């Protein structure tokens, strides 16, 4: 038994951290926040050039096939840097769905472009904010899609969309090229560095992904994979909040002493650390299950998600509090971590959703 990343993975982490330290310091994320850009295109290109996007994509489809543990290593660093890129939607969700459900032809057609960063894909999980499949009203008739999806993460910048829709009474997944036949309107996300959109379709060409009636099965598995990988972004984010809080508590003085010497602050940081370690351990387990033990993934993903949601919310909120007045200013960093935490939590669902998924799978 060995429950740790190996030397190669740790080296990969150091390299990833260095790249992000250089290209995506918090000042760069501030710039995206204050701009109309959908994402940090320069960073995205660097990720593509460094082979990040194809980490878990087989070589035959243009990836490096390093594996999920390696992808998890990258995810943690992306989260820690609060990076503004469509990595998660294009890679954890869309590319994975194409790998799992696509025909050979579809894989050859799409995966190399995603791995190269030439196309960005995303998945529409909701209609009017509702994510259960009973709420799906989008329809495909004669290969044409009609309906509305909202919100769609990275829906403003994506070239390609995967979505569930109904055809002949069956709920299936479809792939849609967003080049035409779609009306995009920006939604106003709390996290301005991970933009969202409402997409309206009135006859866009749609090709089916996976078997007819298989939307539920594929999306269910996509949630598990997505949660396992997003958990690493959340762990990275919580770690960033903890590090920021610790650093501030050491340098900020009140009453003639560093505020970190007061138990009110010290013990809260300790509690952050406890939650973070639980989240980290559960995330490791999910990554391992994803890589090596798929049968355990549904439970492991739920554990990872539940722990990560909680750790990220607590660490980011309390980091603001520890910073006092400066903590809630626009110019400072803490609020960006809070907003990213809410983005990540709201995207694939909170404790009420994942608690049921856990008990359904583990009980």
């Amino acid at each position, binding site marked *: 038994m060995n429950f740790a990343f190996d030397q190669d993975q740790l080296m990969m982490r150091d390299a990833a951290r260095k790249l992000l330290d250089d290209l995506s310091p918090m000042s760069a994320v501030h710039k995206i926040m204050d701009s109309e850009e959908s994402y940090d295109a320069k960073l995205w290109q660097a990720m593509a050039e460094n082979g990040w996007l194809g980490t878990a994509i087989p070589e035959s489809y243009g990836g490096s096939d390093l594996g999920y543990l390696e992808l998890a290593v990258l995810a943690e660093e992306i989260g820690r840097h609060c990076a503004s890129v469509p990595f998660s939607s294009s890679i954890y969700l869309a590319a994975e769905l194409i790998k799992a459900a696509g025909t050979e032809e579809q894989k050859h057609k799409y995966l190399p472009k995603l791995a190269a960063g030439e196309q960005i894909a995303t998945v529409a*999980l909701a209609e009017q*904010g509702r994510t259960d499949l009973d709420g799906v009203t989008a329809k495909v008739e004669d290969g044409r899609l009609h309906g509305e999806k909202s919100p769609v993460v990275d829906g403003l910048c994506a070239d390609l969309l995967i979505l569930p829709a109904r055809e002949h009474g069956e709920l299936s997944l479809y792939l849609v090229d967003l080049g035409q036949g779609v009306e995009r309107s920006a939604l106003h996300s*709390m996290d301005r560095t991970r933009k969202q959109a409402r997409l309206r379709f009135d006859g866009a060409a749609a090709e089916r992904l996976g078997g007819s009636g298989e939307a539920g099965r594929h999306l269910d598995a996509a949630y598990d994979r997505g949660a396992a990988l997003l958990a690493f972004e959340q762990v990275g984010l919580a770690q960033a909040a903890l590090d920021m809080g610790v650093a501030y508590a050491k340098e900020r003085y009140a009453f003639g002493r560093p505020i970190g010497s007061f138990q*009110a602050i010290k013990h809260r940081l300790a509690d952050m650390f406890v939650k973070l370690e639980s989240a980290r351990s559960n995330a490791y387990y999910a990554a391992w299950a994803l890589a090596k033990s798929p049968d355990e993934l549904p439970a492991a993903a739920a554990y990872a998600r539940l722990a990560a949601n909680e750790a990220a919310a607590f660490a980011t909120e309390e980091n603001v509090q520890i910073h006092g007045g400066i903590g809630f200013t626009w110019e400072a960093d803490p609020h960006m971590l809070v907003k990213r935490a*809410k983005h990540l939590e709201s995207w694939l669902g909170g404790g009420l959703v994942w608690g049921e998924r856990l008990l359904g799978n583990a009980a």
Partner: protein
Amino acid sequence: MDFNDTPQEAEFRAEAQRWLSDNAKPRTESGGMMAMFAEAEGEGGNRGEAEWEMVRQAQAWQKRKYDAGWAGITWPKRYGGRGASIMQQVIWGQEEAKYETPPNIFMIGIGMAGPTIQVHGSNEQKDRYLKPMLSGEEIWCQLFSEPGAGSDLAGLRTRAVKEGDEWVVNGQKVWTSGAHYSKWGILVTRSDPSAPKHKGLTYFIVDMESPGVEIRPIRQMTGGANFNEVFFKDVRIPDSNRLGAVGQGWSVAITTLMNERMSIGGGGGMLGGDSGLSDVIKGLGKVYVNGRPAIENAAVRHQLARFMTRFKGLELTGYRTLSALSMGGMPGAESSIMKLEMGLLAQQMAAFVMELQGPNGVLMDSDVALMEAMWQQVYLGVPAIRIAGGTDEVQRNIIGERVLGLPADVRLDKGVPFNEVPTGPRTATV
């Protein structure tokens, strides 16, 4: 024990209702108690003509109330008040809350500066400042906190040096609401850096239009800009604007702060308004959890019941405090409970209602998110509540020490000359 009005209270309430219905428009939607934490996201701040229009409307409404004797229910008649009871003040607040009125931008004056001047001011100061304050003619702001002096307010460094009949002030203040439309500010300065920190402070009333006062907006995480930084460069204040004795600024400031806690945590704010939870319950029929309306989910109901109980506890504790006050008790540290619990509760409740909205939970669009995105706004606005006016940690210290009588923390800065108190790398540069 009785929740109902006494006959005298009922008569007063009827009178208030009559005047309000003649002078204002009933509110269409309450938004509930939590709405007070909601702050619409501002794009690049919320300064500009629209804000000045709001200020003019607020002043007009305040003047109208003042002329009719509703502006200062508990204030002495001599200063334009009604000389009535605190219970009548609350009844007025309950009734006024049912009408559409402009934002109350007079709280710092009427709620904090006014009571301080009434206690510590000279007769000349009372005669000069109180009436224009109450009538809304002159707006006030508070200049206490500094970048290096927040929870440790007495660690402030803004210097005041006496020159003849004037004081020359240099330094920086932060978190000043409404500085840019205020005529007057209440200002605490350090007049003697070699005295122990609480001993070398002096308190002033400063004309915000004085040369050398520079005001810059601070943008918050909501995107709005309700606070300011205020810089003082050789600002001259006449000695006649000093409130209290030289070196006694801390005890004057304490009067202000006790009134601040009362106005944030205690008394009026919580009372009589519904908690907004009935709207939430309605709303939760419209969002789905695991494929069913959220309100049908037992976990949602359980959590909601717990929140409702805490809200009810706050509202009722307000009534208890009020009853004690109206029987002649002093406003005490109990209001720290209200402030502490209210901030935590609002944050947790907002996070909860956001979770229930699934992927819409992170959206600020008022046409998409539940209840016009009020809870998202609360979530972003509430960190300021947990920090401003005394952080959660300060409130717990107050409860522990002043209510429960627990011993104070070890103090390294007690009795030490202020300029010898250790400072960290960050505060040292301020």
